[in-house]
Structure formats: structure tokens, C-alpha cells
């Protein structure tokens, strides 16, 4: 691996011959369009080695000149539940480039940009696409793609089938999976991962995306009047002076970071009660199997049938301690009673699970904010995807329990910041 990680494939590309001759059958992820099937078969027959070494020499000159890695530009964040992939699609490709572009690269670009779903579980979040972004002097669109970590093997299979390794790009990956799946990337797809720390990437990604704005509008937002359900409204927030900032990343688990400057942050704490817990418990309690299903159920449920509220115990507010009657005294507390267990619906259980996990994250966050003396909190992570319920709850909890001292902020690109950070590392490696 050279200084910048651009040439890390040197000497390894030659060993590709171990790959089985016949590409295995396409599965889920690549089963999308016809186009790919064509590209796939053509890619299989190209004498890779010659082509690769040729393009490598040229690209090396090119990158040295422009200090830019070769395409394709990916950033990947392999979490416990989801793999987040960001892909930069250059839109300023010259005719010359187009001509020189290897077939594999072209096919990958087409495959990714012409589909919104990949296989049965891969999804491109089209609404998040960043258009006309300038990155490293190139103009293009940034695409946001996710698929379950469980389907990693399918993804690797596809990578192999598409001869991704022939492109000799650096695959920058972060998240725990970058470590866990590193051997699989090597053996199954002949790809060497450039592993990056997930929190470095997260911080970098957040700061970057916020700085480029979301297609002209604000990336960051908050809820106005969070304590008033009728007046509560999403509002853009200007995060120009972001420091210090508490960054709460809610994935399968939760990490809480205090960010003091671009390069100075620390992980304050974390909790294992995160998105994975919400979905895990929902699956067990309601028999659902997806996050979307669980959220849908939660949106129709009533958690107060499941939770024991302060008023259930004290008949009203617990004034001595300033606890309002509506506050939850015991999550799932009503479920200690057999009759009540029998009378609640799945929707109620899903809602209670959501409220429990969300409020808990809220209270740990609030304590960290107090301990770190920070009053702005940015919540990110895929738990918040399509989860307005949780966001409003967090906004409310921050505001109510801090008596207006704490502000909950959210970012449009929720769970993709780690992957964005990984991509940025590819384009502009940190000086370490």
C-alpha cells in the first residue's frame, strides 16, 4: 500500500486467476436489469490482466497529475445491520474518458445509477441524492445506497461477478464490517479494503455534508415547538458554527461523541439499546421482520396501554419530584399484569418499544450533554430513517427535560455519514 492508498493493489491484481472460470449465477443484488447481465457476461471475457496493467499506468499518471484517485469512487460503511454505500457518479465525463473507460466501470455505473433497487434488499435512497456536487474537481451526483449486512455475501458475489477487482480502485470501508468482512472481500472478491475508523468517518461525513448543503437547502433541521404537537414543525437549522457538538449516532447500537473541532472529538459513551434493539424486540413481540413494518405498526399503536405512567401510580402528577402524570414511570410496566398482557395489540407493543428505546437514548444523551457542557445535539443514524416519531420524541425530550436548554438537531442524510466520510478519505486522505 502506497502513501495514499491509491496503489494498494499493486502486485495483487496479478493473482486474480484463482477466480473460478464461470461466474456463478447472479443473485439478488445483481438481479436487477438486463443491461447488467450483458455487462456481466462481457466483463467475464476481457483479458483482464493486460487491460488492467495498461489502464493502471495511465491512471497513475493521471492521478499524480491531478492528485485524484481513479474511478469508481465509493465509500462504504458496514454496520451491524446495514451496509451503507455512497457512490459518486461523475457527470462531466469527456468523450475521451468515455472511450477509455473500461467496460466494467461503465457497467457498474450504469447498474447503480439506472436502478433504485438492487436485488430484493438493496435500495438507493433517491431522495437523498446530492446533485451537481463538485468533488476533487469533478462534477457529479452522489448516490446513497443501502442493503442489509446479512446480504454481504451476495454483494461480494456480485463484486466478483462484475470483476470489480479489475478496476484497481481503492475500496475505502468503515464500520465494524470493514474488519469482519475484510478476509471475505479478499478471498471472495479479490478486493483489498482500506479500513477506516468509523467515528473518524462519521465526524468527517457530518461536517462535510452539512457544509455542501442538501441540493441548495439546509441539511440540518430541528423541530420548532417540539412540546406542542399541533405547532411542532420541521425547520432548517444553520449549523455554521457547529462546535462544540454532541453527535449521537443511532445505528444498531448507539455511539455518543463530543465534537470540539474538525479534528478533535471523543467518544463519550454508547449504549447497546439502539435501532437493533427496537427492531429485534419488535420482531420478537409482533412477528414483524422489517424496520418499515415495525415503524408502520408503531405509528398505529398506543404505548400508554403497555407502559405504566406516573399517573397510573400516583393518580396524577408526582408533584414532590416534578414528575408529570403523563411521564412513563415504567416501560412495559403494565405488562407485569396478565390481563393487560392479553389485551394489548401488536401495534401498541411496537409503539411502546419505539418510545422506550427513543426515550432512553434521549435521557442518556441529555446526561452526556450536561456532563460535557454542550447544548447542541445532532442525532444521526439509520434508526431515524423515516422515523419522524422518534425524532419528534427526541426533540421533545431534549427540550422538556432540559427546560429548553438543549436543542435536538437532525440531518437529512441520517445514516450515511460514515460512508461519506470513507469516500472523503479516498479523495483526500487525512495526513496520518
Amino acid at each position, binding site marked *: 500500500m502506497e502513501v495514499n492508498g491509491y496503489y494498494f493493489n499493486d502486485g495483487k491484481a496479478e493473482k486474480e486467476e484463482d477466480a473460478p472460470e464461470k461466474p456463478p449465477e447472479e443473485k439478488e443484488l445483481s438481479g436487477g436489469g438486463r443491461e447488467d447481465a450483458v455487462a456481466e457476461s462481457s466483463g467475464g471475457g476481457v483479458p483482464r490482466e493486460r487491460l488492467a496493467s495498461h489502464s493502471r499506468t495511465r491512471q497513475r499518471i493521471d492521478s499524480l497529475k491531478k492528485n485524484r484517485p481513479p474511478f469508481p469512487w465509493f465509500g462504504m460503511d458496514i454496520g451491524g445491520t446495514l451496509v451503507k454505500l455512497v457512490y459518486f457518479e461523475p457527470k462531466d465525463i469527456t468523450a475521451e474518458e468515455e472511450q477509455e473507460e473500461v467496460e466494467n466501470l461503465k457497467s457498474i455505473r450504469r447498474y447503480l445509477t439506472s436502478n433504485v433497487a438492487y436485488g430484493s434488499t438493496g435500495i438507493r435512497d433517491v431522495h437523498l441524492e446530492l446533485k451537481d456536487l463538485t468533488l476533487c474537481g469533478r462534477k457529479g451526483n452522489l448516490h446513497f445506497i443501502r442493503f442489509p449486512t446479512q446480504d454481504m455475501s451476495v454483494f461480494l458475489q456480485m463484486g466478483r461477478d462484475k470483476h470489480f477487482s479489475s478496476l484497481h480502485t481503492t475500496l475505502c470501508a468503515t464500520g465494524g464490517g470493514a474488519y469482519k468482512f475484510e478476509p471475505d472481500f479478499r478471498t471472495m472478491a479479490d478486493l483489498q479494503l482500506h479500513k477506516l475508523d468509523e467515528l473518524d468517518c462519521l465526524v468527517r461525513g457530518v461536517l462535510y455534508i452539512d457544509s455542501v448543503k442538501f441540493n441548495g437547502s439546509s441539511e440540518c433541521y430541528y423541530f420548532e415547538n417540539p412540546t406542542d404537537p399541533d405547532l411542532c414543525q420541521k425547520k432548517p437549522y444553520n449549523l455554521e458554527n457547529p462546535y462544540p457538538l454532541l453527535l449521537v449516532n443511532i445505528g444498531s447500537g448507539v455511539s455518543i461523541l463530543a465534537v470540539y473541532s474538525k479534528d478533535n472529538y471523543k467518544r463519550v459513551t454508547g449504549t447497546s439499546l439502539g435501532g437493533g*434493539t427496537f427492531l429485534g424486540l419488535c420482531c420478537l413481540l409482533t412477528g414483524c421482520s422489517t424496520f418499515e413494518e415495525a415503524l408502520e405498526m408503531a405509528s398505529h399503536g398506543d404505548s400508554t396501554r403497555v407502559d405504566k405512567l406516573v399517573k397510573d401510580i400516583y393518580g396524577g402528577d408526582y408533584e414532590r419530584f416534578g414528575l408529570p402524570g403523563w411521564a412513563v414511570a415504567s416501560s412495559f410496566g403494565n*405488562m407485569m399484569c396478565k390481563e393487560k398482557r392479553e389485551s394489548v395489540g401488536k401495534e401498541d407493543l411496537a409503539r411502546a418499544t419505539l418510545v422506550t428505546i427513543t426515550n432512553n437514548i434521549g435521557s442518556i444523551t441529555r446526561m452526556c450533554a450536561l*456532563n460535557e457542557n454542550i447544548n447542541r445535539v445532532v442525532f444521526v443514524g439509520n434508526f431515524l430513517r423515516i422515523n419522524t416519531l422518534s425524532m419528534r420524541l427526541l426533540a421533545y425530550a431534549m427540550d422538556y427535560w432540559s427546560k429548553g436548554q438543549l436543542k435536538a438537531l437532525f440531518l437529512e442524510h441520517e445514516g450515511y455519514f460514515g460512508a461519506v466520510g470513507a469516500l472523503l478519505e479516498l479523495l483526500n486522505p487525512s495526513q496520518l
Partner: protein
Amino acid sequence: TRQMAASGQMKRSSHSMDKSIILPPDEIFRNLENAKRFAIDIGGSLTKLAYYSTVQHKVAKVRSFDHTGKEAVDEPLYEISVQEEVTARLHFIKFENAYIETCLDFIKDHLVNTETKVIKATGGGAYKFKDLIEKKLQLKVDKEDEMSCLIKGCNFVLKNIPHEAFVYVKHADPEFRFQTTQPDIFPYLLVNIGSGVSIVKVESEDKFERIGGSSIGGGTFWGLGALLTNTKRFDELLQLASRGQHASVDMLVKDIYGGGYSCLGLTGDLIASSFGKSATEDREFSKADMAKSLLHMISNDIGQLACLYAKLHNLNRVYFGGFFIRGHPVTMHTITYSINFFTKGEVQALFLRHEGYLGAIGAFLKGAEEDNPNQYSWGENYAGSSGLMSVSPELYPMQRTRSGTFDMLEMDRLDRQLVNLPLLLDPSSYIPDTVDLTEDAMAREYWLSCFEEALDGVVSRAVASQPDLTDAKERAEKFSQKYQHKLKTLRQQPFAYGSLTVRSLLDTREHCLNEFNFPDPYSKIKQRENDWALKFFHKVVKSLESLNWEERQFSLVKGLLAGNVFDWGAKAVSDILVTDPDFGFEEAKQQLQERPWLIDTYNKWIERLKGPPHKCALFFVDNSGIDIILGVFPLVRELLCRGTEVILASNSGPALNDVTYSELQILTERIAAMDSVIQSGVQKEQLILVQSGSSSPCLDLRYVPEQNMQISNLSGHVCYVLLCYLSAGHKNKNVFFIKIRLDKGLATVVRERHTDLVIIEGMGRAIHTNFYAALCCESLKLAVIKNSWLADRFGGKIFSVVFKYEQPCK
């Protein structure tokens, strides 16, 4: 005795825990006829009843004969009588809610003398059972705030019970590490895990604040656990959890990383996402695994919040309580683990031995404010308390003979407010006991057997002490059974009453003896030996006076040591004393080890004595008879002659053949009558007597009397002795002087007199306890080791001498 059969009331009879109980109820609701003032704390599953009772118990009194004008020859020095004394006791009984009606019925039937109209109530169930209580007991339910009761109760146990708090260490032997009581219990954090969690910061007796809480608590474990596993009962869920493997349900760091996340110091086995696997894997999960995962999730979450609050408020003492904890090893372990993890070991999770009683104690105290219970010191009555870990028998293979369902705590009012001895170098690190038998299994085994073997002797002396009482034998037998049972319990659960020590074994025996009205089994022996020794006092003094200074100092020390051989608490000695009635002072001197002694700093002591006299010596004395009269008094006399004031501290109540304060008063008066030095010392207040505040053969310097109460609260002893002197028309005014000085407690006198020497005598006070005690003045600890096992431990033989003179390090 009427039997109480509560089993018929039970619906859940199929479960093993609900086996029928048939209990003699007077073993549970003790002394109800003398009960006044009730409080009740009804939780989700347990009821805790508290009441205050006046306990009449027999107290041995000594009363001087009027010897004025004549030298009695055959008459004993004083007479012994057994009197009724009324003291106060607090009773706390814990039982499952299912028994509530039966218990209320029983209480009603036995409640005869109370003038009480009100019962203080707290806990979530107080409202639910309000009507039932009012109907059954004819008492008006007066509801008290739960949290303030809890805090009040917590302060009370932390202040009054020496080994209340402990750290739980799974797989360690012992699993319980008891904490020594801190002189100042404030500030602390109390994390109460009921159905939800309350986090309370307690700053003083009256100042506390709920600084936070969480809705994820015991109710979440129970409710969510019931949904996930279809297991209805809390205890069953815990059992299930203790069998499970959380890693099959939780997503661990290694499941995401393949290994640890080393740069953050997160090891692979850490839980990254609770229940994370059930979100991604489509398969069946075992009930036990889910229960375990849930337990970890909740414990970790609570631990984390507790740490965040502790950090924010800069507190490092964090106590956990509530039904989620309730002595369950599995929850104590997970909470401990969590606290260790989140504070990197900086904060320890502390648990309380009487955690379940806090609310009831607090509610009771609120109702008893007019009696000022907080003005007194209270001590746990080992005879009437059932000890730790009796509520979850199925988690503990050891079954108690009594059903595990009823658990009791009794606290006796001590005569006076007790405080630290002001001379302790560092009260917060002072541990009275030399060996913790919960940690030292070999020593535990030895001492438990030793006490068992000595039991017959104690029983026969108890019977002999009450020759006129026909039921003495029967009571002695009951005492024997009770104490044997206690020893058996301690063998299986050494931590049942906190740290197990020789002191606690001795105290437990005294408590059991008192329970069966043997207030002073050694009273006759003490009387005889005192009479006998007094006859030789003059001779001993004479022979000492004939010696030169150096010889005399040695002879004094040797006399003190020889006197200390006369200890009925030591089996080797009591065997000799029983078989050889002629064994006397000279014989004892011959038994003593020759110098150099086992611990021998005698030369240093002599060098010191050649210097300026001490200002004031505080002398904790030991046995009656030869020890006090022929050993201690000659040394006191020498000190007085040197110009050193002497404070003689003796036990407030009887223990073995230790000289009690009231006996010592009579002895001092007698010796003063025949010795001018002692007489002058008494007259000039250079020799004063104080009570040690203890009724134990051992000595805990954390608990000595501060000041006596106002006259109305003076202990029975003092009042009684005063009265009988008056009625006897006693002429000696000096004796009055002694009494009046006594209104000041030991601690006050020690401070006022600028005490610069502490002498502690005897095995119980100087070896079993205080051997390592560091004082901020000179100290002399001396004893004869009258037990070959213990001598062996110290590397010596029986009758080895410990002479430990120390000066504080500058």
C-alpha cells in the same frame, strides 16, 4: 401457641416457593402485646410491617450492702438481683402480599395494649390495601411519601448497622464484601429500582433530591420478560435469565467487527446492540437466552445512567435498592458489572443488607418522630433477625428451617448515643475486628466449632445463675437450640449478618442469652471472685511497695497479665477453673510465658515510664475478680502516684465475666475505703469511671458513648444505682461525685482530659478487636492468649503474652 396456616389463602400453590407455611406466629410477630405504633410498606409483591415494642427483659443488678462502720467478713460485697428493665425494640417483618390478610388478622387478635390510632403506610400497595387495613386493624391509614420514607430508612440503617453496605463479587469467596461504616454517610446516591428507576441524591438527614430516573427498570424486565418468554413471575424470570446465554440474542462487538474494536478499547464480547441478533436472524430464540439478554440490557442501562448522574454530581457512593435488586445475586452481579464498566472501576456498586426494609423503616420513623428515634443509637438484635438472603430460597440451595417467606429484622435501642472514640487516628479506615471470618474459611471453621463446643458450658452456667427459677433449665435449652441454629446458619451463610467475626459470634450469643432471660449467667461467679480477690488487694499492694521501681513496673505488668488469665470466656481457662478451685493469682503467674513474649515491646514501655508522666490514661478493662482487683487496680494506683489521671472504662452491660460498670463502681468504692491513693484519686476526680457503651467482650471504638441523655433518658443502671445509694443512706459523697461526672459520656471525658494514653486489656478487646487499631496517642494493648489455636496463628503457644506498646507516628 395458635398456629397460623396461611397456605389456604394461596392461589399459586403449585409453585415450589409457595409451599404451605405453618409457623408459630410468635416467632414472627414477636412481642405484639407490647407493640405500639405501626407502619406498613406494601410493594408490588412484598409487604413490610414495622412496629415498635417495649421489651421487658431481665437485667442483673448489683447492689452494695451498707458496710459503713464495720468490716464485713463473711457477707458478700454486694448482692445481685434480677430486675425487669424496659427497653425499646423495633420490629420489621417482610412477607409476600398474599399473606397480608392472614397477618392482619393475627395482628388484630394480639394487639391488646396499644393506644395507637394510626398506621403509617407507604409503597404502591398502600392505597390498594387501605380499606382492608383500616377494617382489620381499626387503625387509620396515614399515607407517607414513598421516596422520603426510603431515604429516611436508608439513612437509619447506614448509621446504625455497622456492616450494612456491601459490594457483590460473583465467584469470589465470600461473594459479599462488607463495607465499614463511614463516620459520615453523606452525600450518597441512592438508585432505587422498582418498576421504574429513581435516582436520588442524599446530602443530609433532611436534604435529598430526586435528580433523575428512568422508565427502564424492574417493571420493564418483568413486563417485557413476561411477553417474550411467557413466564409470569419475576423470580422465575430471574431464574430463567441465570441459565441463559445473552450472546445468542445480542449483537456483540465481535459480531460486527469480527473481533474487538481496539482503538476504542471495546472488547469483542461487549454488547453492541441488545437484541440485535433477533433483528437480523430469522430463527427461534430460547426463553432463557432472551431473559438473560433482557437482564443485561436493563442492568447495563441503569448502571450507565447511575454513573452519568454520579459523575455529574461528583458522588462516589452509590447504593442500589428496590425489588429488582432485593438480594438477587444475578441482578447484583449485572449491576456491579455495569458500574465497573462505565466508571472503569472508580465507583463501586453498593448494596444494602436490609434494603427491603428501607421504606417500612422510614414510614415508621416518620410516625415516631415524637419519640426521637434518631436521637438514639440502635443495634441489630442478632437473636431476632433472620439475616441476609432468606427471601429467595430457590436461588439459594440452602433452605432455612423457617420458611423463606418471612424475614425479620429487629433493632434494640441502645442506652446512649454512640460516636467514634476521638482518639482514633483515622475513623474512616478503622476496622475493629482483627480477622474477618467471612474471608478466612479456616478461622471461621475453627471459631464456629469452638463456640459450638463451649455451648454446653454456657448453658450450665446460665442455669446455675438462676438457681431459684424453675424454668431456667427449659429456657437454657431453648437458648442452646437458638444459638446452635444461628451457628448453623452462619456456617452456611457466613455473611448473613454482615462480616462474621469473633465479636459478632460473641454478641450473637449474648443476644440469644438475653432473649431467654439470662441477662448475666456469670453474675454469681463474678460476685464470688470479686469477694475473693478483694481480700488479697492489700497484700498485693504491700508486696509491690517493697520492690524497687524497675522491679515494681515489671511486677505490675506481670500481675495485670496474670489477672487476665482469669477469663471464663476462654474454654482452656474455664476448664481449669472448674476442675481446680485452688487455681489462683500465683498459679496464673506461673502459667505465663517468660519474656521475651510473643509480642514484646516492654522495654520501650519502661523507657517511656522513665520520662514525664502521662496526662491522662483511658483504660478499657476486662474481667472481674483477680483481673480487675489484683491486676488493674495496682497499675491504676501506680499511674495515680505518677500524677496520671485515669479513666476506667468498663462495659455498660454484662458479657461473660467482664466487669460491668455498676460492679466496678462498688469495687472502686471498696478499694478506695482501704487504699488512700485510690481514695484520694476518687475524691480529686483523678480517677473516674465511665461506661464503654458496650455489652460485648469485644470493643468497637466507633461506638462509644458521646454524652448521656438528659436525666429522663439516663440508662436504667445509673438511675437505679443512684436510687439505691440514696435509700441505703450512704454517707460517702465521693460516690455521688462519680455519678455526676458520668453524665458526660466517654468521648466527652476523653476530650476534656486530654487523654494521651489508651490501655486496652484482654483477648476480646486487644486481640480479636483493635489489634491493628491505630490511635493518635500512645497505646498499650496487652493480653494473654488463652486459646491454643489462636496462639498458634500468632506463632506461639497457649498463655503466650501480647504486650504491644505503641507511640503514634509523628
